[in-house]
């Protein structure tokens, strides 16, 4: 009797044990799949998951808080003092460099958080790249998406460095921005500006090697897709960012090497992937026949679907208090119209609309096949980088490079820069070029900062790090112990 009972206990207990083991082993029972959200484990099991994740990052970059406005024609350009504006413009505090103003602060904070959110979205994708089976990818996509993700991660960090850290010329030992390489809640410590730039350069070099499969570079069968590749962080976008990064860091030798490699690729005999804007493209009568944005020169451009809604409140007469405009005198000086007679520059001729009093920048009023394009990286910049990097070592080449750009902008050979220019004069010409070429594109402020100019033309405030280094968000300082 007693034995029988014991047997029963044992069978009862073993039943429970079996059931528990069943539940323990069956962890899948807990892996439920929500409909409105997709587990990353499933998302990155397919090629489309990787593509969609990249697309999401481009989407976010296209928002007004980033390249849709603030990092192009908005905040970044306002800080360069290029625009004239009324006293009650929404950017009136920004133009005074009042970074404590809550409106300016919220723009700055949202650039920081948006960029890092993009980086987190790239990092999770790159994490999955560590173990993904490359067989799930078609064509060249394994390398392409990986290169784009790495390139964008470096590019976005570099943009943050340009805004939130000291320029290397000023202090390369100062702390840079945190360089985040994993999707994790742990706080990444900052390292020096120089070391951070090395991370950026490292990622860009890796990106370039993956992107060698890009049809823009290989230029063989997929020529038809070239225009499309301009909307993604392609091979040349990565390579030009690399040259830009060397220049920022002050490594002129490598900047020159990379820039010259790119320019070599663009030489006539190699079917260049980008082409200078021909006068026939801009002399049309109908709006949709005028290529004001010089679309074929955009090495990396973002697709802004509601471009008109975004730019109309700033670049028209009707914009009222918020409009950005230029006085006749200012444009005359920028383009050296009366001083040197360079008024036939395409950028001047076709870039503005005159309402009888002020000039409005017209490159963002886009129509037809030139619509919805926000320039992020331009072809001309690689010539400027190469010129600047060689101004001491090979001034003749520098002048030649600048003249290539000027010639393509309709500045005749008679007005070409003479070969006698000194390094200093070359730099001054590069400055003028940045101002004309990237007008309304948010590059000039970083030019001032890179070379640590003590004044920014048009501002009475002394240009120090108080202006050049944007404050990190309060939350970042408090919770990241910055």
């Amino acid at each position, binding site marked *: 009797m007693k034995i029988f*009972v014991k047997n*029963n206990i044992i069978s*009862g207990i073993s039943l429970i044990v079996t059931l528990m083991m069943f539940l*323990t082993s069956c962890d899948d029972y807990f892996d439920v799949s929500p409909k409105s959200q997709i587990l990353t484990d499933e998302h990155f099991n397919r090629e489309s998951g990787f*593509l969609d994740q990249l697309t999401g990052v481009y989407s976010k970059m296209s928002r007004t808080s980033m390249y849709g406005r603030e990092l192009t024609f908005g905040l970044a350009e306002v800080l360069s003092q290029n625009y004239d504006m009324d006293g009650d413009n929404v950017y009136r505090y920004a133009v005074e460099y009042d970074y404590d103003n809550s409106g300016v602060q919220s723009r700055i904070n949202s650039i920081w958080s948006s960029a890092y959110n993009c980086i987190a979205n790239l990092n999770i994708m790159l994490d999955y790249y560590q173990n993904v089976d490359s067989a799930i990818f078609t064509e060249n996509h394994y390398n392409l998406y990986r290169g784009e993700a790495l390139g964008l991660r470096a590019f976005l960090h570099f943009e943050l460095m340009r805004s939130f850290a000291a320029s290397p010329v000023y202090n390369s030992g100062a702390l840079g921005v945190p360089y985040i390489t994993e999707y994790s*809640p742990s706080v*990444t410590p900052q390292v020096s500006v120089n070391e951070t730039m090395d991370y950026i350069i490292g990622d860009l070099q890796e990106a370039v090697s993956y992107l060698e499969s890009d049809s823009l570079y290989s230029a063989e069968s997929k020529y038809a897709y070239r225009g*499309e590749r301009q909307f993604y962080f392609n091979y040349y976008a990565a390579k030009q960012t690399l040259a830009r990064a060397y220049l920022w860091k002050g490594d002129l030798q490598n900047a020159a090497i990379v820039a010259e490699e790119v320019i070599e690729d663009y030489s006539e005999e190699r079917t260049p992937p980008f082409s200078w804007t021909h006068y026939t493209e801009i002399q049309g009568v109908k709006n949709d026949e005028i290529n004001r944005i010089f679309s074929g020169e955009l090495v990396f451009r973002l697709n802004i679907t509601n471009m008109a809604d975004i730019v109309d409140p700033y670049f028209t007469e009707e914009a009222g208090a918020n409009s950005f405009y230029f006085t006749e005198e200012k444009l005359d000086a920028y383009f050296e119209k009366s001083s040197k007679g360079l008024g036939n520059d395409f950028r001047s001729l076709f870039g503005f609309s005159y309402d009888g009093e002020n000039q409005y920048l017209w490159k963002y009023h886009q129509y037809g096949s030139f619509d919805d394009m926000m320039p992020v990286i331009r072809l001309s910049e690689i010539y400027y980088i190469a010129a600047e990097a060689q101004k001491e070592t090979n001034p003749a080449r520098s002048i030649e490079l600048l003249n290539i750009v000027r010639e393509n902008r309709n500045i005749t050979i008679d007005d070409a820069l003479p070969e006698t220019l000194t390094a200093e004069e070359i730099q001054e010409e590069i400055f003028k070029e940045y101002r004309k070429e990237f007008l309304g594109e948010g590059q000039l402020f970083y030019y001032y900062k890179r070379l640590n100019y003590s004044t920014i033309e048009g501002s009475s405030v002394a240009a120090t790090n108080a202006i050049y280094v944007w404050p990190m968000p309060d939350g970042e300082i408090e*919770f990241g112990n910055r």
Partner: protein
Amino acid sequence: MFVTNNKSSESPYGSFGLYARMNPYSRIYDDNGQLIQSYNYNGTFEPNPIWNTTINTKDVSEYTDLSNYFYGEWKIKPQLKLVGRLGITAKDYQTDIFYPASHTNFINETNVYQKGSYNQTTGKSLYTSGDLGINYSFMKGSHLFFMNGQVNFNNTKYDRVSLSAEGFPNDQMDHVIFAIQYADGGKPSGSEGISHSAGGLASLNYSFDERYLFDANYRLTGSSEYGSNQRWGTFWSVGAGWNIHKEKFFEGSSFINQLKLRFSTGYTGSQGFNTYEALSTVRYYTSEAYYGRIGSYLVSMANPNLRWQSKYDSSVGVDFSLANKRVNGRFDYYVANTESMLTDVTLPASTGFNYYRANLGKTENKGIEANLNVRVYQKDNNYVNVYASAAHNKNKLKEISNSLQAFNNEQDEEKSQESSASKESITTPSVRYIEGESINTIWAVKSLGIDPQNGKEIYMKKDGSVTYEWDADDQIAAGDAMPSVTGTFGISSEIKNIGCNVAFYYRLGGQIYNSTLVDKVENANLAYNVDKRVYTDRWQKAGDMALYKAISNTSYTRPTTRFVEDYNTLTLSSVNLYYDFRNTSLVKKSFLQQLRFSVNMNDLFVISSVKTERGTDYPFARNATFSIQATF
């Protein structure tokens, strides 16, 4: 199996509060005897809520509930039993809220396409659960064992979709399909979720000679809601008891019938957060595309290490029964520590996100509970019982996360604003999370009263200086909303078939922030009908020794100690009287088996140290219920 169908409609009259705030001089009818729809108050229109009863509106909720429970028991041996249960509950529901263009909600809307609204919500949920248990007990001599083992599972699934449409010119077209358009910027919204959990438990009870009792419990629970690294939570508890009255030295005592000491300690788990926070997931953008493709993005910073929030409970207690079981009582002392609380931890934005969920934070609850029940009189079926209970609890935040500090700052900032979308966020004291303080602390700035010179409130700063400026940094712990003691007491009796039960509720100690007083007198909008104290008790001219700030001062009154009041109450919570016809000739001689008349009244009165209005949305009501119970 049960099938329940329920349909409820809201009254078209709207809340009583809408009527209470109307100015008494506003006319209901115009000169032609027509109902007036709205009144013009300096350009904005104020509704006449009674108007809405003359038009067709709809506010209907309906649900169908289907549930089935299965229970099986198998006695394998007299001491060995297998028990299984399986339950399914499915629910379908729909809510329709319709206001036509003529409804007073739209009197200030000019766009005819946006006049009239229809909100429809449909949803369904499915809940299944089951368990299988085995019990075994055996006795040998003075040893008694009882063992219990169980495995169980729970599945929950829900799905809710709601949509809003607008533009309903005619009040008879009360179906969503007659809408002119979707609500401005609106699209279908809703939520959906699924969770699975399963677990097992084992327990062992042992008693020796009915004198010494021990028990041990072990529980294992797994849930899809927890991090993939921490799917399982394990909890244990042990307890012991000593029946002192069974000891030899007590045997034969006629006065003490029961005296038992109890002790227990252990962990109990709890859960409660969004189903997918532990998992990294992506979503697709719903309104943005990039170059003809829709992109995906990470939803949050997942925390795969998220684990069960655990609560560690310890308690000691005593049960006693004296004097022929006429006096019964129990007393408990407990300490409950909640550890690894699930809270948001603020992250630096460089991680890509603003916060993530983590196990951080501790709270402590300590308290005592006591019950006493005395049978004062008993003879045959007649008895009189008196009873009383008291409870005291003290709450303390021992450790909080950085996000709660950030939350405090945010609230302070909000309080310092001139105006805000929600007035309450400025005028009512906020819950502040401060280590070492209770979560129930009332935070307010020390007030020295109203300056008779100018009708401004004088505040005392933390450094002792005085100021007219309210500053969030000067907030002090002005009171504790938790009472020192709460409890009930009362009588239950039946004498000669007449029953009488009276129950009181009391609270002693602690404070309350008299929000109704602030809102009705100081923060009142003078455009509406207001409390008369606005005109009688507020400061009007120099020299007025007023309780309330200047009538001309329309700024919001922020939390001030002026409105923190000691809060003691006594409530007659229920009275029940009945006459039972048991053993009467009426029942004995008729076909009736039982007959009882009773009357039941709730919340008869409240005596309180604080005068408060209980709100006009649900005005205070005294209810009496009469009932007759008869069994044939």
